[in-house]
């Protein structure tokens, strides 16, 4: 497996931001995002303030900026969409570098890019400074329904297992001379995805059986078996240092 310590999104550290209680960070992220989304996209300077806040938090967390930047690739599809908008939107046109672009489209693209980027950076910062299990404990403390937290817990636990299974299936496919180079190969990939789905489903059943075998009766007793809760005292109860403002 050769998996390193911690999750791929997590950057190990002991900064103020790392030590801040997870529920505070989650709540801050949520408030920050609501404020950003509610901000009119024409208030250009305000976005500068948001960015400055984020940069300050990242600096305080001592996570290398490049670490965050590399993980921003998830935003690429949105960037592509945003870049297309000025071309496809209708309405009054302006000339930029010899291209005729829609004014509304430009503004919409800016809004999407600015808000999207702020959201992605803020979320990545949360992920980089919070261990997945602390995040779950934080959600629990925020009174997120138990079932949802459990589902997230299972997701985190089995993400690596399923990814590894997917990788093994790909390796096995490629060992038999297959590689998905063109659209014509997609049916094979789709069938693999189907097989992976069934395998995961069956694994879910086996996990359930194993849980039943250890006396699981349908209710996870809070406090004792909640992911992250048993251990909350020794490792995660950091001094509740005050985090500045409403950002994550």
């Amino acid at each position, binding site marked *: 497996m050769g998996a390193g310590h911690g999750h791929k999104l997590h950057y190990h550290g002991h900064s103020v931001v790392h030590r801040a209680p997870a529920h505070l960070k989650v709540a801050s992220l949520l408030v920050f995002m609501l404020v950003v989304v509610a901000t009119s996209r024409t208030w250009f300077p305000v976005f500068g303030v948001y960015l400055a806040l984020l940069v300050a938090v990242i600096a305080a967390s001592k996570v290398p900026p490049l670490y965050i930047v590399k993980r921003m690739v998830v935003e690429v599809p949105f960037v592509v969409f945003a870049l297309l908008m000025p071309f496809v939107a209708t309405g009054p046109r302006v000339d930029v570098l010899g291209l005729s672009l829609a004014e509304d489209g430009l503004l919409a693209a800016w809004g999407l890019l600015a808000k999207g980027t702020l959201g992605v950076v803020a979320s990545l910062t949360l992920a980089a400074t919070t261990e997945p299990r602390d995040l779950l404990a934080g959600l629990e403390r925020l009174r997120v329904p138990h079932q949802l937290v459990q589902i997230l817990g299972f997701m985190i*636990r089995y993400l690596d297992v399923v990814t590894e299974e997917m990788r093994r299936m790909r390796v096995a496919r490629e060992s038999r001379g297959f590689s998905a180079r063109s659209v014509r190969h997609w049916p094979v990939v789709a069938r693999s995805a189907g097989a992976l789905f069934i395998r995961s489903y069956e*694994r879910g059943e086996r996990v359930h059986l194993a849980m039943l075998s250890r006396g699981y009766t349908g209710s996870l*007793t809070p406090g004792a078996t909640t992911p992250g809760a048993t251990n909350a005292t020794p490792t995660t109860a950091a001094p509740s240092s005050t985090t500045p403002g409403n950002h994550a």
Partner: protein
Amino acid sequence: MSTPVLDVRGLAYAYPDGHQALFGVDLHVHRGERVALLGPNGAGKTTLVLHLNGILAAGAGSVSVSGLPVTKPNVQEVRRRVGIVFQDPDDQLFMPSVRDDVAFGPANLGLRGEALERRVREALDKVGMVDFADRPPHHLSFGQRRRVAVATVLAMEPEILVLDEPSSNLDPASRRELAEILRGLDVTVLMVTHDLPYAFELCPRSVVLSDGVVVADGATYDVLTDDALMSAHRLELPFGFDPRTIGSPSAG
């Protein structure tokens, strides 16, 4: 003799799709025994195991654990008494940390606080994994995960430990370490396995299940050296392994 820990009588079972897996199985395991359950693929071994703690309900016949019949009302107590370690530790370990996972079973039994903490530590200590309590299971090696899976069941202080293919996918060192752990446990063991040398090493007694019935039950040495029996039920010793050259009861 006293009440057997495991008392299976005339157990028959057919899956909902009509496929019948067990045709009247009789099996008695007494306290402190280590028994290997052998048999080819599809013999019904896993089906039998799932009856032992009431995951599957007997179509005919009965299963009792230390005198307690495996029925709906008793299922919680039966699952405490029968600890099953499944073949794939990834199926068994689902919590974000080893500690939480080992705590899962005893917490379901109602343990809390200090008592729970102590139970977890003892179980991890028995398999030599105390130092890994705070690690996520998916960052452990396969052998370590198998050991933690054993600990998750030991934490429930079962009367019988049922292991499904305990040596599968283990490297020889992990395999030996697990054998040492199992030998050191003061608990009755039923081990489902294809690994005949492992059965010979650990279990003085073997039961052979084939096509849903018990076809042999006796000393492991006698079973493994009965060539007619072995070949009739698709059991084969690995190349170079001959119990005769090792001599009879070595396991203790």
